[in-house]
Protein backbone atom coordinates (compact mmCIF):
# COMPACT_ATOMS: atom_id res chain seq x y z
CA UNK A 1 0.00 0.00 0.00
CA UNK A 2 2.76 2.41 0.96
CA UNK A 3 4.12 2.63 -2.60
CA UNK A 4 0.82 2.32 -4.41
CA UNK A 5 -0.81 4.91 -6.61
CA UNK A 6 -4.56 5.47 -6.71
CA UNK A 7 -6.43 7.27 -9.44
CA UNK A 8 -9.87 8.75 -8.87
CA UNK A 9 -11.74 7.69 -12.01
CA UNK A 10 -14.16 10.35 -13.15
CA UNK A 11 -17.29 9.56 -15.02
CA UNK A 12 -19.84 11.89 -16.51
CA UNK A 13 -23.22 10.47 -17.41
CA UNK A 14 -21.97 6.92 -17.41
CA UNK A 15 -18.80 7.48 -19.44
CA UNK A 16 -15.23 7.46 -18.18
CA UNK A 17 -13.83 10.90 -19.00
CA UNK A 18 -10.57 11.51 -20.83
CA UNK A 19 -8.72 12.96 -17.84
CA UNK A 20 -9.18 9.60 -16.07
CA UNK A 21 -7.08 7.96 -18.78
CA UNK A 22 -4.51 10.75 -18.64
CA UNK A 23 -4.24 10.05 -14.91
CA UNK A 24 -4.00 6.29 -15.42
CA UNK A 25 -1.10 6.89 -17.80
CA UNK A 26 0.54 9.20 -15.25
CA UNK A 27 -0.21 6.81 -12.41
CA UNK A 28 1.30 3.89 -14.29
CA UNK A 29 4.57 5.78 -14.70
CA UNK A 30 4.66 6.73 -11.01
CA UNK A 31 3.73 3.25 -9.79
CA UNK A 32 6.43 1.73 -11.99
CA UNK A 33 9.01 4.14 -10.57
CA UNK A 34 7.98 3.34 -7.02
CA UNK A 35 7.63 -0.37 -7.57
CA UNK A 36 4.03 -0.15 -6.36
CA UNK A 37 0.77 -1.03 -8.00
CA UNK A 38 -1.85 1.12 -9.68
CA UNK A 39 -5.42 1.13 -8.41
CA UNK A 40 -8.38 2.75 -10.13
CA UNK A 41 -11.01 4.02 -7.70
CA UNK A 42 -14.38 4.06 -9.38
CA UNK A 43 -17.32 5.64 -7.57
CA UNK A 44 -20.73 5.72 -9.14
CA UNK A 45 -24.17 4.23 -9.49
CA UNK A 46 -24.27 1.07 -11.56
CA UNK A 47 -20.68 1.55 -12.74
CA UNK A 48 -19.22 -1.92 -12.26
CA UNK A 49 -19.40 -2.54 -15.99
CA UNK A 50 -16.90 0.25 -16.58
CA UNK A 51 -14.13 -1.62 -14.74
CA UNK A 52 -13.39 -3.48 -17.96
CA UNK A 53 -12.35 -0.19 -19.55
CA UNK A 54 -9.71 0.40 -16.92
CA UNK A 55 -7.26 -2.26 -18.02
CA UNK A 56 -4.34 0.10 -17.47
CA UNK A 57 -4.79 -0.34 -13.72
CA UNK A 58 -3.62 -3.36 -11.73
CA UNK A 59 -6.83 -3.33 -9.74
CA UNK A 60 -10.14 -1.50 -9.59
CA UNK A 61 -12.02 -0.65 -6.43
CA UNK A 62 -15.68 -0.07 -7.18
CA UNK A 63 -18.02 1.75 -4.84
CA UNK A 64 -21.49 1.38 -6.29
CA UNK A 65 -24.30 3.32 -4.68
CA UNK A 66 -27.35 5.19 -6.01
CA UNK A 67 -26.27 8.37 -4.18
CA UNK A 68 -23.11 8.37 -6.32
CA UNK A 69 -24.89 8.05 -9.68
CA UNK A 70 -24.20 11.66 -10.61
CA UNK A 71 -21.49 13.73 -9.02
CA UNK A 72 -22.64 14.70 -5.55
CA UNK A 73 -19.71 16.41 -3.83
CA UNK A 74 -20.47 15.53 -0.22
CA UNK A 75 -21.57 11.95 -0.90
CA UNK A 76 -18.51 11.24 -3.04
CA UNK A 77 -16.28 12.73 -0.37
CA UNK A 78 -17.84 10.53 2.31
CA UNK A 79 -17.29 7.41 0.20
CA UNK A 80 -13.68 8.32 -0.54
CA UNK A 81 -13.01 9.10 3.11
CA UNK A 82 -14.22 5.61 4.01
CA UNK A 83 -11.76 4.11 1.53
CA UNK A 84 -8.80 6.25 2.57
CA UNK A 85 -9.39 5.42 6.25
CA UNK A 86 -8.58 1.80 5.54
CA UNK A 87 -5.15 2.72 4.27
CA UNK A 88 -4.07 5.47 1.96
CA UNK A 89 -1.67 5.15 -0.99
CA UNK A 90 1.62 6.97 -1.56
CA UNK A 91 0.01 9.16 -4.23
CA UNK A 92 -3.65 9.80 -4.96
CA UNK A 93 -4.38 11.43 -8.33
CA UNK A 94 -7.43 13.57 -9.10
CA UNK A 95 -8.33 15.50 -12.24
CA UNK A 96 -8.21 19.26 -12.31
CA UNK A 97 -11.89 19.28 -13.08
CA UNK A 98 -15.25 20.22 -11.67
CA UNK A 99 -15.42 17.03 -9.63
CA UNK A 100 -11.73 16.25 -9.11
CA UNK A 101 -10.75 19.48 -7.38
CA UNK A 102 -13.70 19.37 -4.97
CA UNK A 103 -12.78 15.86 -3.85
CA UNK A 104 -9.00 16.17 -3.83
CA UNK A 105 -8.96 19.14 -1.51
CA UNK A 106 -11.79 17.91 0.70
CA UNK A 107 -10.00 14.62 1.25
CA UNK A 108 -6.63 16.34 1.77
CA UNK A 109 -8.05 18.64 4.43
CA UNK A 110 -9.70 15.76 6.28
CA UNK A 111 -6.51 13.71 6.48
CA UNK A 112 -3.92 16.49 6.39
CA UNK A 113 -2.53 15.25 3.08
CA UNK A 114 -0.41 17.76 1.16
CA UNK A 115 -1.65 18.79 -2.29
CA UNK A 116 0.23 19.59 -5.49
CA UNK A 117 -1.63 21.26 -8.36
CA UNK A 118 -2.00 21.52 -11.32
CA UNK A 119 0.54 18.82 -12.15
CA UNK A 120 1.39 18.05 -15.78
CA UNK A 121 4.13 15.43 -15.52
CA UNK A 122 5.74 13.25 -12.86
CA UNK A 123 9.06 11.49 -12.38
CA UNK A 124 10.28 9.17 -9.70
CA UNK A 125 13.89 9.73 -8.64
CA UNK A 126 15.57 8.10 -5.66
CA UNK A 127 12.18 7.00 -4.39
CA UNK A 128 10.79 10.55 -4.47
CA UNK A 129 7.87 11.67 -6.61
CA UNK A 130 8.78 14.80 -8.55
CA UNK A 131 6.16 16.81 -10.38
CA UNK A 132 6.03 19.66 -12.83
CA UNK A 133 3.12 22.08 -12.35
CA UNK A 134 1.90 24.88 -14.60
CA UNK A 135 0.79 28.11 -12.98
CA UNK A 136 0.26 31.85 -13.54
CA UNK A 137 -1.67 31.41 -16.77
CA UNK A 138 1.06 29.23 -18.26
CA UNK A 139 3.81 31.79 -17.66
CA UNK A 140 5.50 29.80 -14.88
CA UNK A 141 6.46 26.15 -14.51
CA UNK A 142 7.06 25.01 -10.94
CA UNK A 143 9.07 21.91 -10.08
CA UNK A 144 8.37 20.19 -6.81
CA UNK A 145 8.31 17.06 -4.69
CA UNK A 146 5.13 15.35 -3.58
CA UNK A 147 5.61 14.78 0.15
CA UNK A 148 4.61 11.50 1.80
CA UNK A 149 3.45 9.36 3.36
CA UNK A 150 0.43 10.23 1.23
CA UNK A 151 0.32 13.11 -1.23
CA UNK A 152 -2.60 14.27 -3.34
CA UNK A 153 -1.83 15.43 -6.88
CA UNK A 154 -4.32 17.31 -9.03
CA UNK A 155 -3.59 16.51 -12.66
CA UNK A 156 -4.14 18.72 -15.71
CA UNK A 157 -4.25 17.33 -19.24
CA UNK A 158 -1.31 17.60 -21.62
CA UNK A 159 1.45 15.60 -19.95
CA UNK A 160 0.33 12.07 -20.90
CA UNK A 161 -1.55 10.62 -23.83
CA UNK A 162 -4.92 9.33 -22.64
CA UNK A 163 -4.98 6.82 -25.55
CA UNK A 164 -2.06 5.00 -23.96
CA UNK A 165 -4.24 4.06 -21.02
CA UNK A 166 -7.38 3.27 -23.00
CA UNK A 167 -6.83 -0.44 -22.85
CA UNK A 168 -9.30 -3.08 -21.90
CA UNK A 169 -8.42 -6.04 -19.77
CA UNK A 170 -9.53 -7.69 -16.64
CA UNK A 171 -7.93 -5.97 -13.68
CA UNK A 172 -8.79 -7.42 -10.31
CA UNK A 173 -12.04 -5.83 -9.17
CA UNK A 174 -12.99 -5.44 -5.55
CA UNK A 175 -16.22 -3.95 -4.43
CA UNK A 176 -16.42 -1.77 -1.37
CA UNK A 177 -19.59 -0.59 0.22
CA UNK A 178 -19.54 2.78 1.93
CA UNK A 179 -19.60 2.68 5.72
CA UNK A 180 -20.90 6.21 5.98
CA UNK A 181 -24.55 6.91 5.43
CA UNK A 182 -24.45 8.56 2.02
CA UNK A 183 -28.06 9.60 2.49
CA UNK A 184 -26.77 12.01 5.12
CA UNK A 185 -24.72 13.93 2.54
CA UNK A 186 -25.25 17.65 2.80
CA UNK A 187 -25.26 18.13 -0.95
CA UNK A 188 -27.65 16.60 -3.44
CA UNK A 189 -27.57 16.37 -7.22
CA UNK A 190 -30.83 17.75 -8.60
CA UNK A 191 -30.64 17.85 -12.38
CA UNK A 192 -28.53 18.65 -15.39
CA UNK A 193 -29.17 21.74 -17.44
CA UNK A 194 -28.38 20.90 -21.06
CA UNK A 195 -26.18 23.20 -23.13
CA UNK A 196 -27.84 25.54 -25.57
CA UNK A 197 -27.67 23.93 -29.01
CA UNK A 198 -29.41 26.67 -30.98
CA UNK A 199 -26.13 28.39 -31.86
CA UNK A 200 -23.50 27.11 -34.34
CA UNK A 201 -21.31 24.28 -33.07
CA UNK A 202 -17.82 25.80 -33.14
CA UNK A 203 -16.25 22.36 -32.84
CA UNK A 204 -17.36 21.76 -36.43
CA UNK A 205 -16.21 25.10 -37.88
CA UNK A 206 -12.91 24.98 -39.81
CA UNK A 207 -12.13 28.71 -39.61
CA UNK A 208 -12.30 30.28 -36.17
CA UNK A 209 -11.59 33.92 -35.43
CA UNK A 210 -11.14 33.81 -31.69
CA UNK A 211 -11.17 36.90 -29.49
CA UNK A 212 -9.66 37.30 -26.03
CA UNK A 213 -9.44 39.99 -23.42
CA UNK A 214 -7.07 41.92 -25.70
CA UNK A 215 -10.10 42.90 -27.82
CA UNK A 216 -10.74 45.50 -25.11
CA UNK A 217 -14.43 46.26 -25.55
CA UNK A 218 -17.64 44.59 -26.53
CA UNK A 219 -18.07 46.88 -29.55
CA UNK A 220 -14.79 45.64 -31.03
CA UNK A 221 -16.20 42.14 -31.39
CA UNK A 222 -18.25 43.38 -34.35
CA UNK A 223 -15.04 43.95 -36.30
CA UNK A 224 -13.94 40.38 -35.49
CA UNK A 225 -17.33 39.12 -36.70
CA UNK A 226 -16.87 41.02 -39.94
CA UNK A 227 -13.43 39.43 -40.40
CA UNK A 228 -14.92 35.99 -39.67
CA UNK A 229 -17.64 36.59 -42.26
CA UNK A 230 -15.08 37.69 -44.85
CA UNK A 231 -13.10 34.49 -44.25
CA UNK A 232 -16.17 32.27 -44.21
CA UNK A 233 -15.64 31.38 -40.55
CA UNK A 234 -17.16 32.07 -37.15
CA UNK A 235 -16.08 33.91 -34.01
CA UNK A 236 -15.13 32.04 -30.88
CA UNK A 237 -13.52 33.31 -27.69
CA UNK A 238 -11.67 32.84 -24.44
CA UNK A 239 -13.42 32.79 -21.08
CA UNK A 240 -13.25 36.47 -20.02
CA UNK A 241 -15.27 37.40 -23.13
CA UNK A 242 -18.02 34.98 -22.19
CA UNK A 243 -17.89 35.96 -18.50
CA UNK A 244 -18.40 39.58 -19.54
CA UNK A 245 -21.47 38.51 -21.47
CA UNK A 246 -19.97 39.73 -24.76
CA UNK A 247 -20.45 36.36 -26.48
CA UNK A 248 -22.60 33.37 -25.51
CA UNK A 249 -21.09 30.30 -23.78
CA UNK A 250 -21.58 28.36 -27.01
CA UNK A 251 -18.59 30.29 -28.41
CA UNK A 252 -16.21 29.39 -25.58
CA UNK A 253 -13.05 27.44 -26.40
CA UNK A 254 -11.26 25.65 -23.57
CA UNK A 255 -11.48 23.56 -20.48
CA UNK A 256 -14.99 24.67 -19.63
CA UNK A 257 -16.04 25.27 -23.21
CA UNK A 258 -15.71 23.33 -26.43
CA UNK A 259 -12.78 21.46 -27.90
CA UNK A 260 -12.08 22.62 -31.43
CA UNK A 261 -9.81 21.28 -34.18
CA UNK A 262 -9.87 24.04 -36.77
CA UNK A 263 -8.00 24.41 -40.01
CA UNK A 264 -7.31 28.04 -39.06
CA UNK A 265 -7.41 29.42 -35.53
CA UNK A 266 -6.76 33.15 -35.46
CA UNK A 267 -6.23 34.10 -31.79
CA UNK A 268 -6.77 37.82 -31.33
CA UNK A 269 -5.58 39.11 -27.94
CA UNK A 270 -5.55 35.68 -26.28
CA UNK A 271 -2.64 34.90 -23.92
CA UNK A 272 -2.75 31.11 -24.35
CA UNK A 273 -3.52 30.01 -20.78
CA UNK A 274 -3.49 26.24 -20.12
CA UNK A 275 -7.28 26.33 -19.63
CA UNK A 276 -7.77 27.92 -23.03
CA UNK A 277 -5.31 25.61 -24.80
CA UNK A 278 -7.14 22.61 -23.34
CA UNK A 279 -9.83 23.35 -25.91
CA UNK A 280 -7.35 23.23 -28.78
CA UNK A 281 -6.13 19.65 -29.06
CA UNK A 282 -5.00 20.31 -32.63
CA UNK A 283 -5.08 22.77 -35.51
CA UNK A 284 -3.64 23.11 -38.95
CA UNK A 285 -2.57 26.74 -38.65
CA UNK A 286 -2.64 28.79 -35.46
CA UNK A 287 -2.00 32.50 -35.93
CA UNK A 288 -1.59 34.52 -32.72
CA UNK A 289 -1.82 38.29 -32.56
CA UNK A 290 -0.67 39.56 -29.19
CA UNK A 291 1.26 42.68 -28.19
CA UNK A 292 3.09 40.77 -25.45
CA UNK A 293 6.11 39.10 -27.07
CA UNK A 294 6.26 36.69 -24.13
CA UNK A 295 2.64 35.55 -24.27
CA UNK A 296 2.55 31.75 -23.81
CA UNK A 297 0.51 31.36 -27.01
CA UNK A 298 3.65 32.15 -29.02
CA UNK A 299 5.25 28.96 -27.72
CA UNK A 300 2.80 26.90 -29.74
CA UNK A 301 1.45 29.14 -32.51
CA UNK A 302 2.42 28.56 -36.13
CA UNK A 303 2.67 32.28 -36.88
CA UNK A 304 2.59 35.30 -34.62
CA UNK A 305 2.67 39.07 -34.82
CA UNK A 306 3.06 41.49 -31.91
CA UNK A 307 0.74 44.17 -33.27
CA UNK A 308 -2.41 45.75 -31.84
CA UNK A 309 -5.43 43.62 -32.74
CA UNK A 310 -7.57 46.71 -33.10
CA UNK A 311 -5.29 48.03 -35.80
CA UNK A 312 -4.89 44.69 -37.50
CA UNK A 313 -8.51 43.53 -37.73
CA UNK A 314 -9.84 46.24 -40.12
CA UNK A 315 -6.74 46.04 -42.30
CA UNK A 316 -6.90 42.28 -42.53
CA UNK A 317 -10.65 42.33 -43.26
CA UNK A 318 -10.12 44.81 -46.06
CA UNK A 319 -7.31 42.76 -47.62
CA UNK A 320 -9.21 39.49 -47.29
CA UNK A 321 -12.21 41.06 -49.01
CA UNK A 322 -9.95 42.42 -51.77
CA UNK A 323 -8.28 39.01 -52.22
CA UNK A 324 -11.67 37.36 -52.58
CA UNK A 325 -12.64 39.98 -55.14
Amino acid sequence: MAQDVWVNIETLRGEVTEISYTMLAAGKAIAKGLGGSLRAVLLGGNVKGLAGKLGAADSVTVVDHPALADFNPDAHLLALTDLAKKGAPRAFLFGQTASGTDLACGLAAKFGFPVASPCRTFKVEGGEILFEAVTCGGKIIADGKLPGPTGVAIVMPGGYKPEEAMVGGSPKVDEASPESDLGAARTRFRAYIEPDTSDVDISKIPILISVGRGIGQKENIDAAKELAAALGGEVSSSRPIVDQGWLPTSRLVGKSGKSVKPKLYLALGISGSPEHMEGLPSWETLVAINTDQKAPIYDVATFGAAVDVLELIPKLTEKVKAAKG
Partner: protein
Amino acid sequence: MNIAVPIKFVPDLVEEMEIDSSTGKLDRTFMRLVPNELDEHALEQALILKERHGGTVAVITLDTGDVDEALFTAVAKGADRAIKIAGEGYAEGVTSHACADLLAEALKDGSFDLILAGTQAVDDLDGSVGALLAAKLGIPYVGYATKVVEAGGKVVATKEYPGGLLAEIEVSTPAVIGIQAAEKPPRYVVTSLVMDAMKKAKIDEAEGAAAGLEGAAEITGMRPPEAGKGAEMIDGDANAVAEKLVGILKEKGVL
Protein backbone atom coordinates in the same frame (compact mmCIF):
# COMPACT_ATOMS: atom_id res chain seq x y z
CA MET B 1 -28.00 35.22 4.58
CA ASN B 2 -24.68 36.39 5.91
CA ILE B 3 -21.99 35.80 3.33
CA ALA B 4 -18.20 35.96 3.59
CA VAL B 5 -16.04 36.37 0.50
CA PRO B 6 -12.33 35.54 0.90
CA ILE B 7 -10.18 37.54 -1.48
CA LYS B 8 -6.71 36.49 -2.56
CA PHE B 9 -4.13 38.86 -3.96
CA VAL B 10 -2.28 37.31 -6.86
CA PRO B 11 0.40 38.40 -9.35
CA ASP B 12 -0.96 40.56 -12.15
CA LEU B 13 -0.40 38.28 -15.13
CA VAL B 14 -0.19 41.22 -17.49
CA GLU B 15 3.19 42.07 -15.96
CA GLU B 16 6.39 40.20 -16.54
CA MET B 17 7.06 37.35 -14.12
CA GLU B 18 10.61 37.37 -12.78
CA ILE B 19 12.24 34.46 -11.04
CA ASP B 20 14.60 35.30 -8.19
CA SER B 21 17.79 33.42 -9.00
CA SER B 22 18.76 33.04 -5.34
CA THR B 23 15.53 31.34 -4.25
CA GLY B 24 14.39 29.90 -7.57
CA LYS B 25 10.90 31.24 -6.79
CA LEU B 26 8.83 34.12 -8.13
CA ASP B 27 10.45 37.43 -7.28
CA ARG B 28 7.83 39.25 -5.22
CA THR B 29 9.87 42.43 -4.67
CA PHE B 30 8.33 44.53 -7.43
CA MET B 31 5.40 42.28 -8.19
CA ARG B 32 2.07 44.02 -8.59
CA LEU B 33 -0.63 42.11 -6.74
CA VAL B 34 -4.26 42.31 -7.77
CA PRO B 35 -7.41 40.61 -6.45
CA ASN B 36 -7.89 37.19 -8.06
CA GLU B 37 -10.34 37.56 -10.95
CA LEU B 38 -12.71 34.84 -9.75
CA ASP B 39 -12.93 36.53 -6.35
CA GLU B 40 -14.48 39.53 -8.08
CA HIS B 41 -17.07 37.11 -9.42
CA ALA B 42 -17.56 35.64 -5.94
CA LEU B 43 -18.16 39.13 -4.56
CA GLU B 44 -20.60 39.88 -7.37
CA GLN B 45 -22.57 36.70 -6.66
CA ALA B 46 -22.62 37.58 -2.94
CA LEU B 47 -23.93 41.08 -3.66
CA ILE B 48 -26.61 39.66 -5.98
CA LEU B 49 -27.76 37.29 -3.21
CA LYS B 50 -27.84 40.15 -0.71
CA GLU B 51 -29.89 42.32 -3.06
CA ARG B 52 -32.35 39.48 -3.65
CA HIS B 53 -32.76 38.07 -0.18
CA GLY B 54 -31.21 40.56 2.26
CA GLY B 55 -28.39 39.73 4.64
CA THR B 56 -24.84 40.98 4.76
CA VAL B 57 -21.61 40.57 2.82
CA ALA B 58 -18.15 40.66 4.37
CA VAL B 59 -14.89 40.48 2.44
CA ILE B 60 -11.93 38.91 4.18
CA THR B 61 -8.29 38.68 3.25
CA LEU B 62 -4.88 37.88 4.60
CA ASP B 63 -2.82 41.03 4.71
CA THR B 64 -0.25 40.26 2.07
CA GLY B 65 0.40 44.00 1.63
CA ASP B 66 -1.47 46.78 -0.23
CA VAL B 67 -4.88 45.22 0.23
CA ASP B 68 -6.82 48.22 1.56
CA GLU B 69 -7.85 49.77 -1.73
CA ALA B 70 -9.37 46.53 -2.97
CA LEU B 71 -11.22 46.08 0.32
CA PHE B 72 -12.62 49.62 0.12
CA THR B 73 -13.61 48.95 -3.48
CA ALA B 74 -15.60 45.96 -2.24
CA VAL B 75 -17.28 48.17 0.35
CA ALA B 76 -18.06 50.76 -2.32
CA LYS B 77 -19.72 48.01 -4.36
CA GLY B 78 -21.94 47.10 -1.42
CA ALA B 79 -20.03 44.92 1.05
CA ASP B 80 -20.96 45.66 4.65
CA ARG B 81 -17.67 44.72 6.25
CA ALA B 82 -14.03 44.29 5.34
CA ILE B 83 -11.76 42.11 7.43
CA LYS B 84 -7.98 41.96 7.19
CA ILE B 85 -5.95 39.33 9.01
CA ALA B 86 -2.36 40.33 9.60
CA GLY B 87 0.44 38.00 10.61
CA GLU B 88 4.02 37.02 10.26
CA GLY B 89 5.16 35.75 6.88
CA TYR B 90 1.97 36.54 4.95
CA ALA B 91 3.72 38.90 2.54
CA GLU B 92 5.92 36.05 1.28
CA GLY B 93 2.84 34.11 0.28
CA VAL B 94 0.84 31.63 2.33
CA THR B 95 0.25 27.98 1.40
CA SER B 96 -3.32 26.88 0.72
CA HIS B 97 -3.49 24.62 3.80
CA ALA B 98 -2.13 27.39 6.05
CA CYS B 99 -4.48 29.93 4.48
CA ALA B 100 -7.45 27.62 5.01
CA ASP B 101 -6.45 27.24 8.69
CA LEU B 102 -6.23 31.00 9.14
CA LEU B 103 -9.55 31.63 7.41
CA ALA B 104 -11.20 28.80 9.35
CA GLU B 105 -10.04 30.38 12.61
CA ALA B 106 -11.48 33.74 11.57
CA LEU B 107 -14.79 32.35 10.25
CA LYS B 108 -15.47 29.49 12.67
CA ASP B 109 -17.72 31.48 15.02
CA GLY B 110 -20.60 30.47 12.81
CA SER B 111 -21.87 33.91 11.99
CA PHE B 112 -21.70 33.19 8.26
CA ASP B 113 -24.22 31.05 6.40
CA LEU B 114 -22.28 31.02 3.19
CA ILE B 115 -18.67 31.50 2.15
CA LEU B 116 -18.17 32.29 -1.52
CA ALA B 117 -14.53 31.80 -2.54
CA GLY B 118 -12.96 31.74 -5.97
CA THR B 119 -12.82 28.23 -7.45
CA GLN B 120 -9.11 28.64 -8.08
CA ALA B 121 -6.52 31.39 -7.98
CA VAL B 122 -4.27 32.05 -10.97
CA ASP B 123 -1.14 31.32 -8.90
CA ASP B 124 -2.46 28.13 -7.33
CA LEU B 125 0.09 25.38 -6.64
CA ASP B 126 -1.27 23.47 -3.69
CA GLY B 127 -4.98 23.07 -3.98
CA SER B 128 -8.09 25.11 -3.65
CA VAL B 129 -8.47 27.02 -0.39
CA GLY B 130 -12.27 26.99 -0.59
CA ALA B 131 -12.49 23.20 -0.51
CA LEU B 132 -9.82 22.92 2.18
CA LEU B 133 -11.59 25.55 4.27
CA ALA B 134 -14.93 23.76 4.02
CA ALA B 135 -13.44 20.49 5.25
CA LYS B 136 -11.66 22.28 8.08
CA LEU B 137 -14.92 23.95 9.14
CA GLY B 138 -16.75 20.64 8.74
CA ILE B 139 -19.19 22.05 6.17
CA PRO B 140 -19.89 21.03 2.56
CA TYR B 141 -18.16 22.42 -0.54
CA VAL B 142 -19.17 22.73 -4.17
CA GLY B 143 -16.75 24.28 -6.65
CA TYR B 144 -16.98 25.46 -10.29
CA ALA B 145 -20.24 27.27 -9.54
CA THR B 146 -21.60 29.80 -12.01
CA LYS B 147 -24.68 30.76 -10.06
CA VAL B 148 -26.00 30.43 -6.51
CA VAL B 149 -29.63 30.88 -5.49
CA GLU B 150 -31.38 30.56 -2.15
CA ALA B 151 -34.11 27.96 -1.93
CA GLY B 152 -35.97 27.03 1.22
CA GLY B 153 -33.19 27.51 3.75
CA LYS B 154 -30.67 25.88 1.43
CA VAL B 155 -28.80 27.09 -1.60
CA VAL B 156 -28.68 25.67 -5.09
CA ALA B 157 -25.33 26.00 -6.83
CA THR B 158 -25.09 25.62 -10.59
CA LYS B 159 -21.96 23.59 -11.23
CA GLU B 160 -20.22 23.86 -14.56
CA TYR B 161 -19.02 20.91 -16.65
CA PRO B 162 -17.24 21.21 -20.01
CA GLY B 163 -19.11 22.19 -23.13
CA GLY B 164 -21.78 24.25 -21.41
CA LEU B 165 -23.32 21.39 -19.42
CA LEU B 166 -24.48 22.48 -15.96
CA ALA B 167 -25.71 20.60 -12.90
CA GLU B 168 -27.90 21.94 -10.14
CA ILE B 169 -26.56 20.89 -6.75
CA GLU B 170 -28.56 21.51 -3.62
CA VAL B 171 -26.39 22.43 -0.65
CA SER B 172 -27.36 22.79 2.99
CA THR B 173 -25.90 25.78 4.78
CA PRO B 174 -23.50 26.72 6.18
CA ALA B 175 -21.38 25.87 3.15
CA VAL B 176 -18.48 27.03 1.06
CA ILE B 177 -19.09 27.49 -2.65
CA GLY B 178 -16.23 27.93 -5.12
CA ILE B 179 -17.28 30.46 -7.73
CA GLN B 180 -16.18 30.05 -11.34
CA ALA B 181 -18.25 32.96 -12.62
CA ALA B 182 -21.07 35.07 -11.19
CA GLU B 183 -24.41 34.93 -12.92
CA LYS B 184 -23.71 38.51 -14.16
CA PRO B 185 -20.39 40.20 -14.97
CA PRO B 186 -18.85 41.86 -11.89
CA ARG B 187 -20.14 45.40 -11.40
CA TYR B 188 -17.97 48.42 -11.89
CA VAL B 189 -17.69 51.13 -9.29
CA VAL B 190 -16.62 54.72 -9.86
CA THR B 191 -13.52 56.02 -8.09
CA SER B 192 -15.47 58.67 -6.18
CA LEU B 193 -17.44 55.96 -4.37
CA VAL B 194 -14.22 54.14 -3.50
CA MET B 195 -12.81 57.41 -2.11
CA ASP B 196 -16.00 57.82 -0.11
CA ALA B 197 -15.65 54.33 1.33
CA MET B 198 -12.04 55.09 2.25
CA LYS B 199 -13.24 58.08 4.27
CA LYS B 200 -16.25 56.48 5.92
CA ALA B 201 -15.63 52.75 6.25
CA LYS B 202 -13.23 51.03 8.57
CA ILE B 203 -11.35 47.82 7.96
CA ASP B 204 -11.59 45.32 10.83
CA GLU B 205 -8.12 44.11 11.63
CA ALA B 206 -7.39 40.81 13.28
CA GLU B 207 -4.13 39.20 14.30
CA GLY B 208 -3.49 35.77 12.76
CA ALA B 209 -1.01 33.04 13.61
CA ALA B 210 2.33 32.98 11.83
CA ALA B 211 2.02 31.31 8.45
CA GLY B 212 3.56 27.87 8.33
CA LEU B 213 4.33 25.84 5.27
CA GLU B 214 2.21 22.87 6.27
CA GLY B 215 0.38 20.92 3.68
CA ALA B 216 2.20 22.32 0.71
CA ALA B 217 4.06 20.25 -1.78
CA GLU B 218 7.67 21.33 -1.69
CA ILE B 219 8.47 23.62 -4.62
CA THR B 220 12.12 23.18 -5.55
CA GLY B 221 12.24 25.79 -8.28
CA MET B 222 10.36 27.79 -10.88
CA ARG B 223 11.15 28.55 -14.49
CA PRO B 224 9.58 29.99 -17.60
CA PRO B 225 8.02 27.40 -19.93
CA GLU B 226 10.20 25.83 -22.60
CA ALA B 227 9.60 27.85 -25.74
CA GLY B 228 8.90 24.79 -27.88
CA LYS B 229 9.52 25.35 -31.56
CA GLY B 230 7.87 28.71 -31.20
CA ALA B 231 5.85 30.77 -33.62
CA GLU B 232 7.32 32.18 -36.80
CA MET B 233 7.03 35.89 -36.01
CA ILE B 234 5.85 38.32 -38.66
CA ASP B 235 7.49 41.73 -38.40
CA GLY B 236 6.20 45.10 -39.47
CA ASP B 237 3.21 47.32 -38.70
CA ALA B 238 -0.42 46.21 -38.79
CA ASN B 239 -0.67 46.87 -42.51
CA ALA B 240 2.42 44.81 -43.34
CA VAL B 241 1.28 42.01 -41.04
CA ALA B 242 -2.17 41.96 -42.69
CA GLU B 243 -0.53 41.78 -46.10
CA LYS B 244 1.68 38.85 -45.10
CA LEU B 245 -1.19 37.06 -43.39
CA VAL B 246 -3.26 37.18 -46.56
CA GLY B 247 -0.32 35.51 -48.32
CA ILE B 248 -0.13 32.82 -45.65
CA LEU B 249 -3.89 32.22 -45.75
CA LYS B 250 -3.71 31.77 -49.53
CA GLU B 251 -0.81 29.36 -49.19
CA LYS B 252 -2.71 27.34 -46.55
CA GLY B 253 -5.77 27.17 -48.77
CA VAL B 254 -7.95 29.21 -46.41
CA LEU B 255 -8.34 31.98 -48.95
